[in-house]
């Protein structure tokens, strides 16, 4: 920057730049002094006892929503309720009766990651949190 040169309309330009820098650095000052580690999930005793989910943990973590979408299609459109995973184990394709059977603690399992990643799945529009407790 040439120091001998004069800035014209300095007040307006500097004000504009300050606003620009404030907006651009928003994520830095918004989170100042906060630590936001990934949420820890709690597994229910049933889930712990089962050891493995329908698919390996890493696949479930990234792709559980796609699996559920396919399950819904199979059940609702094709009337097929049985899912066989790669190791040959059979599962009933049901969010309420299979998934939520083990993971009956929606608020400490599903919601923790969903809230962290700002995802609001419409599953819960119809499915109740915990069907077992409703009985």
């Amino acid at each position, binding site marked *: *920057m*040439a120091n001998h*040169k*004069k*800035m*014209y*309309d*300095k007040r307006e*330009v500097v004000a*504009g*730049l300050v606003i*620009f*820098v404030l907006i*651009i*650095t*928003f*994520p*830095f000052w*918004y*989170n*100042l002094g*906060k*630590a*936001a*580690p*990934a*949420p820890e999930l709690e597994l229910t005793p049933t889930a712990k006892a089962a050891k493995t989910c329908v698919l390996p943990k*890493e696949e479930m*973590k*990234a*792709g559980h*929503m*796609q699996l*559920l*979408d*396919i399950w819904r*299609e199979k059940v609702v459109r094709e009337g097929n309720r049985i899912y066989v995973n790669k190791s040959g184990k059979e599962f009933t394709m049901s969010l309420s009766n299979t998934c939520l059977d083990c993971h009956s603690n929606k608020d400490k399992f599903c919601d923790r*990651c969903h*809230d*962290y*990643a*700002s*995802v*609001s*799945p419409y599953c819960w529009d119809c499915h109740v949190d915990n069907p077992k407790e409703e009985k």
Partner: protein
Amino acid sequence: MNSKYMFSLVMVILLFLIAYIGVEVAGLYRLFGIFIPYLAAFVFVVGFVYRVVYWAQSPVPFRIPTTCGQQRSLPWIRPASLDNPSENSGVVIRMFLEIVFFRSLFRNLRFNFNKGQKFSYEWEKWLWLGSILFHWSFFTVVIRHLRFFTEPVPLCLQWLEKADSFLRLEFVTDFVQIGLPGIFMSGLVLLAALIYLLLRRMWIPQVNYVSFAADFFPLFLIIGIAVSGILMRYFAKTDIVGIKEFTMGLVTFHPKAPEVSGIFYVHLFFVSVLLAYFPFSKLMHFGGVFLSPTRNLANNSRAERHVNPWNYPVKIHTYEAYEDEFREKMIEAGLPVEKELTTNGG
């Protein structure tokens, strides 16, 4: 084959390979995850400010009325207060319409010979449409990404996501599954608009003639960003919680690069390149639009005097002073004077 866009395309492919190989083969997670993004963000902010300050050192002494409307004149002639504003309030509205709705692009016309030799102006809005779709969807995508940089995520961002995914596009076959996670309109509109803007530059001869590598490179780069983002969201799924932990680490200065798939690092590297490239490129029209003198100055040249700051201080001798100096001699020589000699003045 056009070397201008081939060069840009090859550069973007090269950047893709650098990031992909750098992470998948060489395992340079910290370089691509921490060092380059911080450097790029720094270059972006400092470069942007430098560029604007540099521009602000150019004086714009005179008003540059673009002749889009009647300027303020006699009271019985109606002035065009938005196209040729004489006051700052009009300028503010003109700037707002320009920045937010690209009004000057909207005015685009095409000249054509219609029905034989009849010259006509055609309504040409495709550039405006492609452009506004691109800018607004890109803006939405950027704002939406703030969910990775805020914890807790502000409610307004959640509303934006809801609005963006309101169209529940769902499609399941044995081979393809889309619908969950919810389809964000902005991502698809962004990609479609980019492809239109790119094809326009390739296929319309007049536009192709004025397009250079500096025009194609950002297009290819942003297409790369959009494609890698769409891939990660809908197809080659990545662990989103792990990624948010990483991005939150970046903004709280405790970064820990995760060992996720190369495609995430390609996405991040493309964004870093875009940020670092920004201040040196035509993309600076983001800052430039605020400083365009044909838009941001009121046309008040007739009402106010604007002095050119680089005028040399010329020593002037007015006719009045000249006559004062030579009045007696002028009268003697019989030359006409404006002021006669006065008894007490002579």
